[in-house]
Every structure is written in structure tokens, then in C-alpha cells.
């Protein structure tokens, strides 16, 4: 079920807006349908990433927490 990420963006230890900005820049390098994995520790990312996904139209496939890190899988539209 879990899709393989084409790229991992490590934004751990960074604050808003870096997780979302790095995610947007990384997605520019990907083709439609490819998946990016974002690692973040900013608690604001829990609200920011879904907000970003809703506005850009990219799909937030999965989200969760792993060892204190928030992990997001995003598929480029």
C-alpha cells in the first residue's frame, strides 16, 4: 500500500515556512505521480502540509509520526 518515495526531504529541526517551501521546491524536480517524503519536526507542519496540499492540489497520501518526527508522503499532481 505504501508507495516508494522518489525523494526524501529532511526538514527536521527547521521551522515554518521551510518544510513547505522545501517540499514545493523538491516537487518541481519530480514528474506527475511521483512521491516525495517529507520529514519535519515543526509542530506547525501538521496544519501546514495539509493546507499546502489543499491549495496546490498535490495529494497528501499519508501522514504520521515516527520517533518524534512527522512524516508526510506527498504525490505530485
Amino acid at each position: 500500500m505504501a508507495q516508494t518515495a522518489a525523494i526524501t526531504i529532511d526538514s527536521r529541526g527547521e521551522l515554518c515556512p521551510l518544510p513547505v517551501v522545501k517540499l514545493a521546491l523538491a516537487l518541481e524536480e519530480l514528474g506527475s505521480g511521483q512521491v516525495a517524503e517529507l520529514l519535519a519536526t515543526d509542530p506547525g507542519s501538521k496544519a501546514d502540509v495539509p493546507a499546502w496540499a489543499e491549495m496546490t492540489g498535490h495529494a497528501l497520501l499519508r501522514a504520521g509520526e515516527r520517533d518524534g518526527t512527522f512524516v508526510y508522503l506527498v504525490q505530485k499532481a
Partner: protein
Amino acid sequence: MSARVAKDLEIKGVLDYEAFLKLHAQAHKDTDVKRVALVASKGTLDMAYPPLILASTAAAMGMECGIFFTFYGLDILHKGKLASLKVAPLANPAMPMPVPNIIGAIPGMTGMATWMMNRMMSKQRMPRIPELLETCKKLKVRLIACTTTMGVMGVSQKDLIDGVSLEGAAAFLNYASKAQVTLFI
């Protein structure tokens, strides 16, 4: 739009997207409810009043309102600071003090200006900041703390009053993009 967000979250409850999307999607489209999105960026007593007054008014008018507290504005949500916000008399020529502005640099003048402002407010029976915040909460104004500010200023959620949501710029912009009124204060 919520169809774009997967329902099969790895850990339920950690990221409550359903609630989040409901909050953000609720806007003018399906209802007559208008939205006001405010930014409170300053932490002085005089600049704490406008966002709270506008928010409570908006909510009283049946509008849905959220305030994003960022940078020094975060002090308005800070349990240890919100009841003792101050007015700066220096470089504030609007202060109704019958003395030259440079006097504001003398120690004790900030306390003096703050005392004056509090007195002016209570004479007009204006509520204090803590009461105004309580009113906003009762009227269901969304109080949003900027997580970047919390990180930069070393503020944790337990330093803030209860009922505050933690969000970043993207979440606020998404929320504000569905508002009819947005103001930066």
C-alpha cells in the same frame, strides 16, 4: 477538496485532518457565514486591543474569526505576559502625555504610560486584555499560535493559554484565502 487527503492515516489522532479541513473549508461557499482572518504581530498593550476588539466584534456579528499571533504578538497568548503588556511612550508621539517625547526614555516612563493607558481604558469601562481574551474564547474566535515564533522565542504550548491551535504560515494563508476580511495588525 478533502478527497485529496488520504483517510488511512498511519497514526490516528496525531494529525486530525478531518477536523482541520472542516475548520478551514467552512467558509462562504455553502453558508452565509463570513470569515475574518487577523494577524496580531505586536505585543504592546495598545496593539493587543485592536485584534481582540475586532475579533470579538466579528464573532458577535455572527462572523467566523481567527487570529494568528506571530512574533511579539504571541505575548498576547502567553500566560505569564498577557496580563502585563506595556505601552512604549518613547517614539510614540500619539501618547497623551503633556511632556516632550524624549522624557519617555527616562526609567519608569513605560510603567507610567502603561498605567495611563490602563486608566483610560478602565474609565471607559473597557475590559482588560485577559477578559477580552476570555470573551473571544467564549465567542469561539480561533486563537492560532505561530509555531515559528514559538520555536524562535523558546515558547512551548504549556506557556500559552488553553485552547490555542498551533499552526504555521501555510495553514494561516489557507484559512485567510477563504476569508472576506484579512487584516495585519
